[in-house]
């Protein structure tokens, strides 16, 4: 069963066709990857799916529902959560509160309860703090719950972003280059973490990455984008042997 179906999605910035007629599907419970050279339109594709920018044409069906025209926060409430390529955490909130922000957005108490600090509000907040702590424990950061994100090392910031994305209890998790900037040892840890998270929460993952190691170890299916267009699709082995992909993507890397 497909959780996400994208049909003929296009967007252009001026004359640049950033994403051109891309159709792809993401199967429930699997890890699907999108790879491609720089400027291939991978992040733009994520921005389209998560509602940051509206598409010019095409359709996005999530869990049987058309979400093409929904705004960013509505899509988040439908069950798509994401991380960002250049980490975007809330630096004036503590690490725990960063995770809690996703739970807060799903908390139900109104503004008058908030003004007066009524017991109902306090109970919800307490529960959410405990839940946030649980997510921090999963990514192994419970000991730095009270710190601030900007004083964390890079790898931990990535893990915190993952915890925050998980806290919104998504059906589909979009990871935008989660291993960028990590050293080989951290990459290994991150792969393990993703495997663990997938088993624990039974979620579907759509992943962008430059690190072929990450992509080939994790992915059940790979899509290759080049200049905004879909170049190839298939399993890890199929992509590895595809001559077009080698020319467009890996071939260029070999020259360097």
């Amino acid at each position, binding site marked *: 069963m497909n959780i996400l179906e994208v049909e003929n999605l296009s967007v252009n910035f001026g004359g640049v066709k950033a994403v051109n007629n891309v159709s792809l599907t993401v199967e429930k419970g699997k890890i699907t990857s999108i790879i491609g050279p720089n400027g291939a339109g991978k992040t733009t594709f994520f921005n389209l799916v*998560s*509602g*940051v920018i509206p598409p010019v044409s095409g359709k996005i069906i999530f869990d049987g529902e058309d979400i093409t025209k929904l*705004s*960013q*926060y509505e899509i*988040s*409430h439908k069950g798509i*959560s*994401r991380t*960002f390529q250049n980490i*975007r*955490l*809330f*630096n*004036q*909130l503590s690490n725990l*509160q960063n995770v*809690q*922000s*996703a739970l*807060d*957005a*799903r*908390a139900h*108490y109104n*503004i008058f*309860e*908030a*003004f*007066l*600090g009524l017991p109902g*509000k306090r109970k919800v*907040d307490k529960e959410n703090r405990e839940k946030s702590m649980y997510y921090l424990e999963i990514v192994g950061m419970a000991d730095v719950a009270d710190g601030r994100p900007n004083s964390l090392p890079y790898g931990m910031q990535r893990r915190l972003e993952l915890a*925050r994305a998980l806290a*919104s209890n998504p059906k589909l998790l979009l990871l935008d280059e989660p291993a960028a900037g990590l050293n080989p040892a951290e990459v290994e840890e991150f792969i393990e973490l993703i495997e663990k998270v997938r088993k624990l929460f039974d979620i579907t993952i759509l992943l962008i990455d430059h690190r072929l190691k990450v992509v080939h170890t994790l992915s059940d299916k790979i899509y290759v984008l080049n200049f905004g267009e879909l170049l190839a699709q298939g399993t890890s082995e199929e992509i590895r042997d595809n001559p077009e992909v080698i020319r467009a993507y890996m071939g260029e890397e070999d020259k360097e």
Partner: protein
Amino acid sequence: MSYYLNVLTTVTINMIAILSMYLLIGLTGIFSMGQASFMCVGAYTAGMLATRTSLPFGVVVIISVLAGLVSALLVGIPVIKLRRDYIALVTLGFGEAVVALLNNMSNITGGANGINNIPRKVNLWIALGFLAVVIFIILNFKNSRFGRYCIAVKNDELSAAAMGINVSRIKLISFVIAGGITALAGCLMAYNTTYIEPMAYGSAKSIDWICYVFVGGVNSLSGTLVSGAIFNILPEVLRVVYIYRILVQGVIVLLTINFLPQGMFGEAEIWTLIKDLFKKKKKNTVVSKER
């Protein structure tokens, strides 16, 4: 003695208004350069009701706050979707427009003469009571999910929206609450000074408030309170050299921004600082015992 009480009452009421600015800039990161005009809205609502009807004080306060909330809602709906710098420009225009309107509608508002003979019903204790209520409400707001939304939106709108936060809604909520609080301050001011005129509530006042919040520490409620108190009492202390008052204020703002870019308190609250101080003392005593 009554003169000093009077000064303190005015300072207290001004602090209520400055707290609304803390809510906007400190928490949500909205630059409202016309916030003082909401004080105008509150003051004129109160002034007109107090001189022309026989409504009791409590009812007038409630109506003034409602007037502030409604006018902030009307301004907020179109403004809030704009980018941060444009919000500052539009609110600046709105603030000046309100002042010009009140100045020129002389048959209703008394024009530049303002409204006189408002009964004096606010004393220091009433003002302090209202200040306490406003602090209580803002602190609870800050510690609720709404306060965390505000900070999230200030830090990063894109990822706040990705977490499921309705960014324009939370900005509007904070703008409307701030409008209500400022109108409350205006209403109290009318009942305190017994006289109101529009020129006192121009953009210069709004910009003053922005400065106070920055000097106090953008993310610190107690910092805003302390700097608000300092800057409001300072002109009275410097009464002998009154013309240099603005100069002194400017120098303080420049020095703070240069040497303490986070403001006096940064993100810390005064009570957490005191708590930390005690903790450190305790730790020190433990260490000395071990020795």
